[in-house]
C-alpha cells in the first residue's frame, strides 16, 4: 500500500479558552486578536520542514490541502506549498499529493489544471491530483458560491479540467457556469493521459457515485477515525460492486490521525494535550456551517432528515483516552499503532492509499518530527507490503513511482528527529 504524510498547517498556539471566547475556528476567527504574521511564517516553514522530513524518512507521498479563513488549516493555496515540496524532493520517489486545490473556488477553474500541470512538470511526473468539491465553509461562506450551485459547478469544472489536460486541439468550453473560448493549456502534465485523480469526500453519498463513475480514487477525509468510518466506507464499496468495478483497494483513500511513542503510556504523556487541542479547538464551529440551505440536494436533505442517525458526537466532552478508545486517533506504541491500522484501516475499510496526520493541533515542531520518525521507522515498513499478495495495481499512483521503494530513513534524518 501507499502511505502519505498529510498536513493541515494549523495555528499551534490558540488561547486556552479559545472555544469559549470565539464562535468558530473557521470563517469568523479574528486574525488580529489571534495571530501574528511573523509567527505564522514560522508555522508555514515548520509545515514545509515537517513534510520534507517525512519525504526523506520514507513516506510514499506528502499531502497538502486547501482551506480558507480557517485557523486549523490555512493553506489557502496548497499549490504554493506543493511547489516548494516538488522542487525540494526532486530526485526522490515521493509523490506530491495535492488534496487539493478546490475547483469551485478557482475562477476560471482551468487555473487548477494549469498549476497541477506545472507541479507535474516540476516534479518529473510525481503529482497526484486531488480534485475536491470543497467544504461549504470554504466555498459558500468564504468564497460566496451559491450553495445550490456548489456541486454543479464542481462537476462542470471537473469535466473541464480533465478535458483541458487531454485535448489535442484547442477547444471552446460553453458551460453553464464557465465559458472559455480558447482552452489550450500550457503546460500539459508529464503523466499521460493525465495525473492520477483523487476525489476527497466527507461521506456524502452522491460523491460515491461520482467517484466510481469517473474511475477516481475516493478518499474519505474524516477526523473521526477508521472505526467510525466503517459503515460509510462499506457504502462506497457497495457502490463499486453495484457498478461492476473491481474492488481494488487502491480505489480508496483514508485519512487517519496517528501518534506513536515508546509505549502506550508515553503516547498519552506526549500527545494527550495536542489531541484534545485538535478536537476541542480546531474542530470548533457552529454545526449549521456544514450545510447551508441548498448545499445538499433535495434527495440527500430528505434522507438525512428522515434517517435516525444521531447527531455527531460532541467531541468537546471527550478526552484523550476516549479519542484513542473510539479510534478517532490511533495512538500508542509502534506495535499498538501498527496492529490497529492493519485491522481498523487496512482490513476493515479496505484502504490502499493511506494518509496519516502526524502533526496534530498544537503539536510542536520537534515532537512532530519525533512522531514522523517513529512512524517511518517502526510502523510504516510493516504496512507497506499490505495488499501486495493480492496483485492489485495502484492505477491511482504516479506510474513511475508504483513499484519504487522510497528512501530508507538515514542516520542524519533520524538524528534530526531525536
Amino acid at each position, binding site marked *: 500500500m501507499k502511505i502519505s504524510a498529510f498536513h493541515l498547517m494549523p495555528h499551534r498556539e490558540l488561547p486556552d479558552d479559545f472555544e469559549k471566547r470565539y464562535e468558530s475556528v473557521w470563517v469568523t476567527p479574528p486574525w488580529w486578536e489571534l495571530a501574528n504574521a511573523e509567527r505564522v511564517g514560522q508555522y508555514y516553514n515548520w509545515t514545509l520542514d515537517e513534510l520534507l522530513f517525512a519525504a526523506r524518512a520514507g513516506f510514499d507521498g506528502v499531502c497538502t490541502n486547501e482551506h480558507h479563513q480557517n485557523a486549523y488549516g490555512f493553506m489557502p493555496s496548497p499549490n504554493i506549498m506543493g511547489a516548494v515540496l516538488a522542487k525540494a524532493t526532486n530526485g526522490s520517489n515521493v509523490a506530491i499529493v495535492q488534496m487539493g486545490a478546490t475547483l469551485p473556488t478557482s475562477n476560471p477553474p482551468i487555473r487548477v489544471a494549469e498549476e497541477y500541470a506545472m507541479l507535474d512538470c516540476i516534479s518529473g511526473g510525481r503529482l497526484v491530483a486531488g480534485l475536491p468539491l470543497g467544504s461549504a465553509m470554504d466555498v459558500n461562506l468564504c468564497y*460566496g458560491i*451559491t450553495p445550490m*450551485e456548489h456541486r*454543479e459547478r464542481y462537476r462542470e469544472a471537473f469535466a473541464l479540467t480533465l478535458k483541458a489536460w487531454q485535448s489535442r486541439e484547442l477547444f471552446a468550453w460553453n458551460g453553464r457556469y464557465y465559458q472559455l473560448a480558447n482552452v489550450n493549456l500550457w503546460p500539459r502534465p508529464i503523466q499521460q493521459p493525465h495525473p492520477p485523480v483523487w476525489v476527497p469526500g466527507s461521506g456524502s453519498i452522491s460523491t460515491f457515485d461520482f467517484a466510481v463513475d469517473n474511475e477516481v480514487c475516493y478518499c474519505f477525509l474524516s477526523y473521526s477515525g477508521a472505526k467510525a468510518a466503517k459503515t460509510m466506507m462499506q457504502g462506497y464499496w457497495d457502490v463499486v460492486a453495484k457498478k461492476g468495478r473491481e474492488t481494488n483497494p487502491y480505489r480508496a483513500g483514508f485519512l487517519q490521525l496517528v501518534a506513536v511513542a515508546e509505549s502506550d503510556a508515553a503516547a498519552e504523556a506526549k500527545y494527550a494535550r495536542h489531541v484534545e487541542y485538535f478536537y476541542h479547538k480546531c474542530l470548533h464551529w457552529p454545526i449549521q456551517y456544514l450545510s447551508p440551505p441548498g448545499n445538499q440536494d*433535495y434527495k440527500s436533505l430528505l434522507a438525512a432528515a428522515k434517517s435516525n442517525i444521531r447527531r455527531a458526537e460532541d467531541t468537546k466532552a471527550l478526552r484523550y483516552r476516549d479519542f484513542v478508545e473510539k479510534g478517532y486517533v490511533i495512538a500508542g506504541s509502534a506495535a499498538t499503532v501498527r496492529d490497529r491500522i492493519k485491522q481498523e484501516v487496512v482490513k476493515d475499510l479496505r484502504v490502499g492509499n493511506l494518509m496519516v496526520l502526524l502533526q496534530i493541533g498544537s503539536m510542536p515542531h520537534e515532537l512532530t518530527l519525533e512522531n514522523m520518525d517513529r512512524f517511518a521507522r517502526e510502523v510504516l515498513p510493516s504496512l507497506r507490503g499490505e495488499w501486495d499478495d493480492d496483485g492489485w495495481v495502484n492505477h491511482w499512483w504516479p506510474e513511475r513511482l508504483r513499484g519504487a521503494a522510497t528512501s530508507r530513513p538515514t542516520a542524519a534524518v533520524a538524528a534530526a528527529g531525536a
Partner: protein
Amino acid sequence: MNERTIAVWDGKVRIRVQSRGSGPALVFLHGPWGLTWDPFLDELAKSFTVHAPEHPGTTPETPDDIHHLDNLWDLVLCYDELFQALGLESVALVGHAFGGMLACELAAAYPARARRLALIAPLGFWRDSDRVVNWMMLDPARLPEYVFRDPTSEAARRMFAVGADPDAAIMARVRLAWAMGATGKFIWPLPDKGLKKRIHRVRTPTLLIWGKEDRLVPPVYADEFTRRIASARVQTVDGAGHVPHLERPEAVARMIREFVAG
C-alpha cells in the same frame, strides 16, 4: 380556495398558485420560508382576489424545478409568463422579504403590471453599517427569535411546526430548509443583486411596511427605497419583527387595503 399549478419556462418550472377572495387582483409573493396560507391572506381576501404563487422549487412536490433557473433575470421572466397565464394585466403587488425584492424587480421590469406596490421588509439592498442578517447561516434553533418579535407566538409555532407530530415536523423542516435554499439561490451571499440600477423604473405608488423590531433586515433599509421611489412612503408596525403581516395580520392588511384604495 382555488389551487392551480401553472407550467412556465417551456414547461420546466411548475408554479403552484393559491387564489381566494373577490375584488381587484392582488398578487402576494412570499419570503424565504415558503408559502402557507395564513390569516393575513384571509384578511386580504376579504377585499381582493388574492393570488399567492409558490416560488420555483419551494413546492414540496416539485423541488428540483429550481435547477432550471440560474439567476434573477430568469426568475423575473418566469413571473412574467405566470402573469400572462393568469391573465393578470395590472395588479396590486405585495411581497415580503425576498418576495418584496422580487415584487420591486417586477415593477421595474414591467411598470404597467404593478398598479400599486406594497413591500413588507423587502430585501434588495446592502449597507455595510447595517448588515442584513443572513438567516441561512443562523442556528436553526435560533431562527424563530430573529424572524418573530415573539418566537413563542402562535404564528411562529405555525411557521416552524412546533408541536406538530414527528413526521410532519420532519417534512416541515425539510420544506423550510429547501425554501431557503431555493430562494437563496437568487440572493447568495448578499441580497444586493443590482436593484439599485433598475429601481428608477418603478413609477408605481409604493408603500413600505416594516416591523419596528425587525432583527433580520433593519428598518433603516426603508430609506434605500424612499430615496429612489418618489411616491414611496413608510409605515412601521408596533410589536412586530421581520414578519409583521404574520404578527399583526389585521393591522398590516388594513394598511394595504387603505393604500390600494387610496
